[in-house]
């Protein structure tokens, strides 16, 4: 089955050009002009990746992202105007897995999408059960339980948790996590890691403000402990 990509972009020319470029990669592209249209299209038929422009008339990109995220762990890429505003952090907090800034090169976009698709499909069948206090991770089933209760993680959050769990107690720098989870080289944006860790904590920690499992090691990175 062909990979389906849902794009939300109000500028018709950009939308068409991006569609052409993505179709050249062999993907099926469904376009929508507004957030409302995109939500309707997504509920009709789920996509494998969603590409959302933040600046939309009516429902903005953050809200579209939040609503999709409510009942789907589909990979989401945000398109922002600038890399250094709080737009990036807000987009990631709304549930996006990654972001791009305009004007982006389509090759960069397809690289991001491919990385997300890999993450969505990757599951190492040989991984053992992992236990960290009240936290239980079953990598081959893609399931995480806290105190016996199953919790929902996005693909990226799950990948991040499994990565940290692969070497309990070891400190992972942001660069390492960026490379292993997002497929970035050295120069990925550290905020991707920080926001995802924050999101992960709200789900796996009893008290996210006072984390017991996903611990920050100042100046070095993060580690997972029981």
């Amino acid at each position: 089955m062909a990979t389906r990509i849902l794009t939300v972009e109000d500028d018709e020319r950009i939308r068409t050009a991006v569609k052409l470029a993505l179709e050249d990669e062999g993907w099926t592209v469904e376009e929508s002009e507004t957030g409302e249209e995109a939500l309707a299209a997504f509920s009709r038929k789920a996509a494998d990746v969603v590409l959302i422009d933040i600046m939309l008339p009516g429902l903005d990109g953050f809200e579209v992202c939040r609503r999709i995220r409510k009942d789907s762990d589909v990979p989401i890429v945000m398109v922002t105007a600038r890399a250094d505003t709080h737009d990036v952090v807000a987009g990631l907090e709304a549930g996006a897995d990654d972001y791009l800034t305009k004007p982006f090169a389509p090759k960069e976009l397809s690289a991001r999408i491919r990385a997300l698709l890999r993450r969505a499909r990757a599951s190492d069948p040989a991984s053992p059960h992992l236990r960290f206090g009240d936290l239980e991770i079953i990598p081959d089933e893609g399931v995480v339980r806290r105190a016996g209760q199953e919790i929902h993680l996005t693909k990226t959050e799950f990948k991040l948790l499994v990565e940290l769990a692969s070497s309990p107690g070891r400190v992972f720098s942001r660069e390492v996590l960026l490379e292993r989870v997002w497929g970035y080289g050295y120069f990925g944006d550290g905020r991707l890691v920080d926001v995802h860790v924050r999101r992960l904590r709200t789900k796996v920690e009893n008290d996210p403000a006072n984390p017991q499992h996903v611990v920050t090691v100042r100046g070095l990175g993060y580690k997972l402990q029981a």
Partner: protein
Amino acid sequence: MKRPRFLPRLGLRARITIAFAVGALLLSALLAASTWGFTRQNQLDQRSTSATTLAVANAENMAQGINAATPDLQELLQAQPRPTGAHPILLYEGDWYPADPSYGEDALPRELIEVVQGGDDARMRYTYDGEVYLAVGVKLDTDVDAAYFEVVSLEELEQTLETLGFSLIAAALVTTLCGAGLGWWAARRVLRPLNRVGAAAKDIARGDLATRVEASDDPDLAQLAESFNEMAAALEQRIERDTRFASNVSHELRSPLTTLSASITVLENHRDDMPERARAALDLMVADVNRFRQLIEDLLEISRFDAGVMHLDVYEVRVAELVMQAVGAATDADIPLDIDSELAGVVVEADKRRLMRVIANLIDNAAKYGGGATRVELRQVDDKVQIAVEDDGPGIPDEDRDRIFDRFSRGLSAADRRTSGGEGVGLGLSLVAEHIRLHKGRVFVEDRPDGRSGARFVVQLPAARGSASSNGNSAES
């Protein structure tokens, strides 16, 4: 034409202070001198008059005494009233009878004796034995040849006058100092509004465009404050408009550029289906759209600096690792890295993306204008971490070393630029300067230390704090 100056030019405040001091000095010196002169004259006259009156009265007594009987001259002399410091002397038939043995004939000036012997009364002020005296001589109205003299010491008066003189000089000095103080204070008051305006102008120049001068009640100063504030407001508006314009233009270019980028990618995907001529045209377009994209990104970055909305995503970054990665990402050329091994674990607080841009831009710059970077150096200098990029191009002449960090200045002549393929937009180095300024660091150009031709761009970043120990988790390559 400027007059040659032998003294350093004094400031306005110093000049006002000096003028006040000199005025006070002249005035007080004049007053002191005239006071002293009048007092002296007055006192001397008084002393002379009283001494003369007494001497004349005594002389009359003496004459009566001598005429009355054969007198005991000494006893008669002693009987005359005399104030302290007065010494009577009698000349009787050519013999001298001093009342006080230490004040005899010798204590009298010769001219006075001669005048008195000639028959006239006389008085005279003179110096004897280092002290000042007044002598009065009266020819006695007797049958015999006799004259009465009185020597009066003026030393006490002289001392009084001397003390008065010192007091007056002291008073003049105090007055001068007071004058200087007053001048200094007045100058400060007068200059205070100017200083405020100066400080405000400095703030504005530093980039704080909202600075205004406090309005003043003083009508003389209100106008200065008002016109300064008007100027500042106009300047602020103008700069804001320019900034907004640049930012809006760049933003407007963003969307078409995204379309262009995507469309060109599609064309590139189908390059093989195109005729030869279309392919050549496409290649030109691809190159220039990429350049265009870089330019817009740089312009956006610059307009963010101008709008003051730039903020750094600061992380603790291992600087040695960053330099290695940045150099590797910036160029395929094999540039020798000279990294101080002491810096292996040292971290700096930096925005990784921007620091990488800094290094990439310096390497790009070396490639475009210096024939490619020949060496990248990283070492600790005092409490700073220093990154240097060297090339073996023509170098940068002294007079261009500041200008080269200006926007759209390439520091090279048009002819040189043509040989570099017309690439580069002249924003790279100004972005370096802005990024480094945000990092509270410093960037400059210097000669290569080995004396060979070429430029050496140096970036200094502050305070590499203690090195974070590596847990081996960074060794990923």
